[in-house]
């Protein structure tokens, strides 16, 4: 067995704990949303950890929508797999949650930690190009604003794609750890599965379930880090008090409250934290936390009620999604999807795939989606600049 070739998924909280699944015992991938198949797979593997990857286009079967563009990365809509080995790596040691310490598994772990600790990263000279020209982007925002004005929607997450073609990635894990080194995001992830690679440096959680308690933590509102402590503090203060950023965030909080109410016991939806500022090495973010007590434990019920996450759609969700398809120049594919896992007790944790590079070994295309929330008070130039801020680190790392 060559570790480089086996399916590997790393879910990295960057607080010293990494959950690593490698190889798989069984896998289910589909371009549909078949509730029964999914629940069957989950119950067949209920004693194992199940890793799950969701593409944005799962919206189509869930909400009866279509997409104009084809997903060039060709990710399945949904992938569920039960890894042969699941290891929790901490600074204290390693724990086999699934599988045993064998010569093969320890060799893979050994290799993986070596990649993580070896800081002599490879250089890459990958330049990402915009698939949407700035003129088009700005023009689209004024068109979107017309819909906002008309009242179709009151917020829309409008994204564009940056991409590179004929890209060779000789050592993907090395690239992931290099990216992680500069971002240290709490919902960072790496996936190599079949022809697909995901390098995710996301700061955003989609949903977490612990027992009957479910929470969602949408992010809306971004500021860059300051060049010095003083400037950094000023940027945090202005983000905290920016009425536009706050209203964007609160609109999504309302949407998530609405989504959660579909699966929550009566009166249990609660906003635990509203518009809190969290700082990451690359960026400051405004994050809210909304939680509820679940009345259903079915994963598919929860997915149907909540996916795609409101922070990546806008509100109202369905109309925003229709307009997203109308205005965006690409199929988001895995971008603004989610990756996470369900543990043997049924608890789970899923992120939002943003600040990510997505790669397909077959067509050698590297894709990086980025977007921002457009409201009636949006300044098109500033939104464009915000997009660039969000992927600045990623672009810097892969171009050097």
């Amino acid at each position: 067995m060559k570790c480089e070739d086996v399916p590997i998924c790393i879910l990295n909280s960057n607080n010293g704990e990494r959950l690593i699944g490698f190889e798989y015992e069984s896998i289910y991938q589909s371009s549909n949303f078949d509730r029964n198949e999914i629940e069957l797979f989950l119950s067949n593997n209920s004693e194992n950890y199940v890793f799950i990857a969701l593409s944005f286009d799962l919206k189509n079967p869930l909400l009866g929508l279509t997409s104009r563009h084809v997903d060039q990365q060709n990710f399945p809509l949904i992938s569920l797999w039960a890894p042969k080995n699941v290891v929790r790596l901490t600074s204290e040691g390693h724990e086999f949650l699934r599988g045993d310490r064998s010569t093969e598994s320890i060799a893979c772990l050994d290799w993986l930690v070596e990649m993580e600790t070896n800081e002599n990263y490879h250089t890459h000279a990958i330049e990402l190009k915009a698939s949407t020209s700035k003129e088009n982007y700005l023009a689209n925002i004024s068109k979107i604003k017309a819909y906002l004005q008309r009242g179709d929607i009151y917020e829309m997450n409008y994204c564009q794609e940056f991409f590179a073609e004929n890209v060779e990635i000789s050592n993907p894990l090395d690239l992931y750890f290099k990216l992680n080194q500069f971002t240290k995001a709490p919902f960072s992830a790496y996936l190599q599965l079949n022809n697909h690679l995901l390098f995710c440096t996301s700061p955003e959680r989609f949903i977490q379930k612990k027992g009957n308690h479910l929470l969602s933590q949408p992010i809306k509102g971004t500021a860059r880090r300051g060049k010095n402590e003083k400037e950094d503090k000023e940027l945090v203060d202005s983000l905290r008090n920016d009425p536009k950023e706050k209203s964007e965030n609160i609109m999504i909080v309302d949407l998530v409250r609405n989504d959660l109410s579909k699966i929550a016991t009566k009166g249990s939806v609660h906003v635990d934290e509203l518009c809190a500022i969290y700082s990451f090495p690359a960026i400051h973010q405004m994050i809210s936390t909304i939680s509820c007590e679940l009345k259903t434990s079915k994963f598919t019920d929860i997915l149907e009620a909540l996916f795609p996450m409101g922070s990546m759609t806008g509100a109202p969700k369905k109309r925003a999604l229709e307009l997203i398809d109308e205005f965006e120049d690409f199929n988001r594919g895995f971008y603004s999807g989610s990756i996470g896992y369900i543990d043997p007790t049924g608890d789970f944790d899923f992120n939002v795939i943003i600040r990510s590079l997505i790669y397909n070994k077959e067509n050698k295309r590297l894709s990086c989606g980025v977007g921002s929330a457009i409201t009636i008070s949006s300044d098109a130039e500033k939104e464009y600049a915000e997009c660039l801020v969000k992927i600045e680190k990623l672009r810097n790392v892969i171009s050097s």
Partner: protein
Amino acid sequence: MSSLVSGIDKILNGINATHYFVAISSGKDSVALAHIVYSLGYPMTLLHVNYHLRGDESDQDQRWIEHFARSIHIPLKVFDVDKNIRNLSHGNLLQIARDIRYSFFDKEQAKIKNSIILVGHQQADQIENFWMHLFRNSGRSGLKGMAIKKGNIVRPMLNFHPELITSYLKEQNIQWREDSSNAKSIYLRNFIRNELMPFLSKSHPNIENSILHIQEKFKQAEAADLAELDAFNQNYTTKFPLDKLNSFSDEKLLLFMKQFGFKGSQLESFRIFLNAHTGAQFEMNTTHYFRKERNHIALVKLNTSPKFPILTIEEASYLPKKFDKKTLFVDKNKIKGNISFRYWVQGDRISPIGVKGSKLISDIFSDAKISNTDKNNIPIIVDDDHILWCYGLCIDRRKIATNENKEIIKITIQG
């Protein structure tokens, strides 16, 4: 009553013990002391050690003392030393004999509350003591000679000339036995007694008094320093100002150091420490060390009193799921020789999981922010090949057990 008897009576009266253990060797000094204490009517016990160093002669000594004790109706305790003392002697035979003797005395003395041990040192011994220390390059504390009372030992005859003792024995018609080894100059002490002093006395008849005089001066000077040090200790308990310590004479600094268990030979390195960079440490014992600060040295308690770790090595029938750095599972078939532990030495390397080649353990310590003091207390587990484990910090990948191994060794550490 002779001046010897009344002088001893005065000293014993001043001590006011409940019981007197008199060390007796059958030589004239200890026999005289025992007889004087007996004649003054103090409650007493005789203590004798038979070293078996002089064959029959040693046994004859013992029988003689038994007879002496019976004749004056005084209880006697004899400690019979293993006959091989000469063979086990790594060092000075006299020193070993001395250690054996005093541990026996201490044990007996401890049985009676407020009792004391009397030994027969007299003035000639005191003078010999001076020469012995001089030859050993001792400082003031050695050259000052013995004290009449030190701890549970009292030397009532220390200031009396040996001639007084001899005449007492003759007056009382008391026998004693000459130690045949006394007559030979095989020991340094005997050389001083039998050759050096008689030689010096020929041209300098007053030499004994000169020595006693200088010893007295040394005693006084030390007493003065101790009094000052007492005052110093009243003011400073954990932080000792550098300007004061630097102004101390060598002798006074030594007295200061001795309070913390240092030896005279450490004086020079202690002086260097006093002028070292801030943060420098001077190791003291297992519980404390000195740390150099800007204007003082601080007495610092070690974070964890290092205990001798106990390595538990057992066979394990299966591997657990969870591996931490406090338990090691190794493949028995890969282990060469014995598994043992030691402490870190400069240049130690380990091959951790996920590192190509090896890494210096000193780097692992600094990554983990282990203090200089603590790093010497972290057990390093090794077999005959290489380091297996830096306890709690890092496991070497080369011999860890995997589930294919039939024979697994589990190693844990307590303490």
